[in-house]
Each structure stands twice: as C-alpha cells, then as structure tokens.
C-alpha cells in the first residue's frame, strides 16, 4: 500500500475537488517578507522521512528498541513500524516507566483560548478555512481580559493563545497585547498562531510568551500542497522552519505535530519526531513538546485502510514519541474522548487541557453572542477544570497548574 494516494475522504467535498484543479502558487517558494534562515534541518527531516521504510522492520528490531537504554532514530523507526503493533502492551509499559522516571506522577493542566478565528488559508480539512462561511470574530483587548479573568478563576495558570492564521486581522502587535494581558493572569503562556519571523517571535517572547506550537500537519510536501490550497500557510518550508525561528527568537519551548491521518501517519510521525530530535540537538536548551491530533477513520468504510489511525495506532505513536524522547512534553487533543485521554495520561501524556472551547469568546458570559465566533472543531472531552483535576487525582496523578517560575 503506497502512501501516495492515501486521503481521508471525510475532508473532501465537491467544491474542494474542483478547487484542487485550479492553478496554485509554488508552495516551496518563500513569499516576500518571509525570513529565510540558514538551516539544513528541513532537508534532514525530509530526507530521513523519505528513507524511512517501515515495512523492513521486524519483531527483533522492535524488541531491541524496547530493550535499549537510550533509543536512537533507528529504534524510533522500529517502534513506529507495523511490526511494533503486536508489542503495544510492552510499549505502553515501557512508556509509562519512562514517563514516571522523567515526570513523576505530575500532569500539567492548561486551556486553549481562541481570541480570533479569521483565517487567510485554504486548508481543505479545517473548519476555520477562509472558504467556510462561519461566523468570524476577533476579541478586543477588553474581551480578551474578560475571557482570561474567567479562565483564571478556574485555577488554571497556563494558557495557550490561539488565533486563526490571519496576519492581517490578528497582527503580531495584537497577539503581543494578548500575551501582555495573559501575563497578568497566568504563569505560562503558549501561542499557537501563524508562523512568523524570528524577530517577531522575539517580540512575543518579550510580551510574555514562553513557547510556540506549530502543527506541520504533514511533512510530505507533495501532499501538503494538495491540502493547503491558498494563503501563507501554503508555503511549506516557511512553516517547517517556524520552530527554529521561534528558538532563534528566544522562546523557551517549541511544540510539534503532524495531523495524523492526513497522509501516511507512520512517516509523518517519524518526521515529527526527527524534526524535534534534530532541533533539540541543535538547540540543546529547547524544551520539546508533541501534540497528537488525528483525523478519525471513516466509519462504515468497508475497505480496511492500513493508513487509518485507530486508537491502537494513536497509542503506538504516543508511546513511540515518549520512548524516543522521554523528556518531552506530550499533549493529547480534546478531539479525543475522556476514556482515551485518561488512559493516555496514565501512560505517556504529560499535559492535558481542561475546559476547552474552540470557539471565540466562549469562556466568559460577559461577551455578547454577536461578538462570538464559531468553533474550529467539535471537542470530544468537554470536562471542565474541576472534573479533569479530579479525574487525574483518581488515576493517582498529581495535577500541576504551573511547572515554572516565570523568567
């Protein structure tokens, strides 16, 4: 089965099929204003991914990888291969040991805050994409403060600020103001916004942001091109180098993710791990985080697609990340249900969101309905902070609101 023609059909529509036929700009060419850094990390990641043939790994390779004291990229490759699926229980046991070794029983809690949902990109799988006729909104500074105050009341000390990817509507200045407000209410501030230049990351760091998450979605540039039809996000190399620019700008940590299921998830997960691995080697001070979003397989599909990411495959990827980079932070999306999330924190996940809302202006009752924006995706875990807190305690885990002293 070749990954080349794989597509999760749930993301396709008549319109998208038509739009895919239109002429599109060169996705490998930087647009004016995009900083080009000297770095061979992208080439190394893509090269490693292209050479990754997961069919060649055997049970012996998986056993060797499981037994290894320190796991190499080759071990990681084996753990992501189909040959590792029969060893999923062993992987989970080993991952749990690594997690507890590095994190004890603490699990960080945070919540995402969408401050705007304007988007200039045409990502065919995303609810926010610029062709979707959804209700757009952008919070002003007062509204941001109201939302943050409402969240802070729940006891959370870490926040992840999100915008849709619109440089024009959600400017760097605007995001900076949001960070400055967040600083009043929270100890740890992450941003998940459009990729920007290193001096802009430096500015946001000054405003209070600590870490930057950018989802690469897929590391296969050919597939990437067919999914991101327009907008800045279409420029593949600019996105892939975002974490490095963030580190150059002084950010403490960077987050990585492929949207598993967009393309061949084994290759994408391998590339995600290699991307983090190579940047950690190049910037040893960098804190590394993984997120593990997936597109769910289509139900009632009579063909069994080996590219589908079922729960087993998701667990395999999460465990492989943990075993490869035992010190990294791993987050699980609210796209997953409480059963899956609670079990993953018991094995390898070290950061979990609570009280998540993917709409704009959803946290505070003070914000008028007309000022609110539609949701990016439907969440499967709508538990509030207290519920997640108690769920963690019931698992024998220690919920942690902030792991840092702000520096």
């Amino acid at each position, binding site marked *: 089965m070749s990954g080349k023609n794989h597509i999760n059909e749930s993301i396709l529509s008549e319109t998208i099929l038509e739009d895919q036929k239109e002429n599109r700009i060169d996705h490998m060419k930087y647009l004016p204003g995009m900083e080009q850094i000297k770095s061979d990390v992208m080439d190394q990641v893509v090269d490693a991914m292209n050479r990754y043939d997961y069919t060649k790994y055997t049970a012996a390779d998986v056993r060797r990888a499981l037994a290894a004291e320190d796991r190499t990229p080759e071990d990681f490759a084996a753990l992501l291969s189909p040959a590792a699926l029969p060893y999923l229980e062993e992987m989970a046991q080993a991952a749990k040991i690594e997690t507890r070794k590095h994190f004890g029983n603490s699990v960080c809690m945070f919540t995402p805050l969408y401050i705007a949902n304007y988007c200039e990109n045409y990502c065919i799988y995303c609810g926010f994409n610029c062709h979707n006729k959804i209700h757009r909104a952008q919070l002003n500074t007062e509204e941001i403060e109201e939302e943050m105050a409402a969240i802070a009341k729940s006891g959370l000390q870490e926040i992840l600020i999100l915008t849709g990817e619109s440089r024009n509507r959600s400017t760097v200045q605007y995001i900076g103001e949001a960070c400055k407000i967040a600083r009043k209410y929270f100890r740890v501030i992450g941003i998940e916004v459009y990729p920007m230049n290193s001096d802009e990351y430096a500015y946001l760091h000054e405003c209070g942001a600590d870490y930057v998450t950018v989802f690469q979605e897929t590391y296969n540039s050919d597939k990437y091109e067919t999914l991101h039809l327009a907008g800045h996000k279409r420029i593949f190399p600019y996105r892939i180098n975002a974490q490095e620019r963030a580190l150059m700008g002084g950010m403490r940590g960077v987050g990585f993710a492929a949207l598993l299921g967009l393309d061949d998830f084994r290759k994408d997960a391998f590339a995600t791990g290699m991307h983090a691995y190579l940047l950690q080697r190049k910037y040893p001070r960098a804190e590394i985080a993984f997120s593990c979003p997936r597109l769910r397989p289509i*139900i009632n599909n009579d063909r069994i697609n080996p590219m589908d990411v079922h*729960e*087993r495959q998701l*667990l395999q990827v999460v465990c492989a990340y943990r075993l490869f980079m035992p010190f990294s932070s791993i987050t699980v999306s609210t796209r997953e*249900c409480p*059963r*899956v999330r609670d*079990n993953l924190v018991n094995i390898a996940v070290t950061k979990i969101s609570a009280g998540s809302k993917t709409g704009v202006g959803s946290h505070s009752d003070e914000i008028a309905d007309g000022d609110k924006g539609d949701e990016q995706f*439907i969440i*499967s875990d709508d538990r509030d902070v207290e519920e997640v807190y108690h769920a963690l305690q019931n698992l024998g885990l220690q919920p942690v609101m902030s792991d840092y002293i702000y520096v």
Partner: protein
Amino acid sequence: MNQMKDTWKLGGHEFTSRFILGSGKYSLELIRACVENAGAQIVTMALRRANEGGLANILDYIPKNVTMLPNTSGARNAEEAIRIAHLSREISGSDFIKIEIMRDTKYLLPDNQETIRAVDALAKEGFVVMPYMYPDLNCARDMRDAGAACIMPLGAPIGTNKGLATKEFIKILIREIDLPIIVDAGIGRPSQACEAMEMGAAAVMANTAIATAGNIQVMAEAFKKAIEAGRLAYRSGLGRVREDRADASSPLTGFLRDDEGEA
C-alpha cells in the same frame, strides 16, 4: 559483517585500528614490538627539551607508517598548549595534536575551559585537534563547535587504571556528539576497553595499563583483541538482557476500542 570494512576518520584521515597507544613509561626497546602487537596506527608522544648528543630517540623506535600524535602535556593554559602544538608540528610534520591542559599536579585533571580556547585557536590554524577532557556535555559541545576532530573524555583519573568511572557521562557524549568519542585515561584492563567499545566509543587510548603490565607485548595484544571484540559487539547490537522486574499484570492497553462510534 566481519568482512565489511570498518574504518573511522579523524580530520579526513582514515584508520582501521581503534587502539591509540601511548608511548610513555616504556623502555624504548619494547616500543616497536608493542606497537606491532597492538596493531596501533596512532601513537601518542610528548615534547620535552632535547637530550644533547646522539642519545636514543623515540622516533627511532616507532614504525614509519604510524601516525604520530603529539600531546601538549606540561601545558597549564591554552597559550602554552598552542606553543607546544607549533613546536610539535615542526618535528612530526603532521597536523595531529592532542590537547592536554592541566593545572593540578595531584590528580592531573584536564582544564576544560582552557582546552576549549586551545581547540578554537588550533582548529582555525588547520590542526587536527583531539582534546583530552573531563566528560562534560556542555564543554564537549563547545569543543565540537570550536572545530575539534574528536572528543577524548577520561574514563578515570590518568594513570589510575580504575576503568570507566565516568561511564554514564561518556555515554551521554557518545549519544549527543556527532564526532568520534575516544576514551582516554584510566583504562586499566582489556575488559574495560572492551566495555568502552561496546558502548559505542570510536576508539580507546591506553598507555599505563600496558606499560606497567607483567608482559608488555602480550598485554598490548590483549588490548587489541578486547577493543576489536567490543567494536564487533557494538556493531552487531547487544542482545536483550532480561531485567528482574516482573511484567506488569494489569494491561495498559485494555481501554482500546476498535469501533470508532464514540464521539
């Protein structure tokens, strides 16, 4: 696999032997046989004020095809090491230099900070710089960035024959630094040299262990074989050592569901 050529490189020069032999503390007559039994392609030596008159010189006893690796022993700071490197190059005619900087006469521990400075200056001049160091990851990174050709962490204080006392830290260097890691100093037995190679060291340097052995030539051969064995073990991938820990009885994967009906 045994037939596959297994070479390694230092500053563009290729070697097959992974045993770097120190030449100190021997009677000169024994050195040639020792180098031959060790199969060594690199031999270290030190620079000192010359004896007057036609006294025996170590270079008369070192086979011609062996790469001379002068060290900077006696240097107490980067400047002295650089001066010794320049003088050594005049005699050896090659760019190989092993940096050794100590300002402690009791334990002879290397000064990593001064060593970083010396690596920087000498690498810029085109030397193949091989720094002897205390196995500290941050310093090793600085040496790598300054242009070192390899990293030579100590296994134990020099001359003590105490083996891989710094094992965990050398493992970190092997994992994190993309340069040959050569375990230098402290290796007292062939089994310790073998273990260093099993861990993934590119080579082992030994001197005192051989020079003070009962039968010097035979010990040189013992080290050669131990280093080769360790290298083969590393290349073949060590087998699983079963841990005493019993397998957990409650499975962690019991929660998985095949149907994706749940939202």
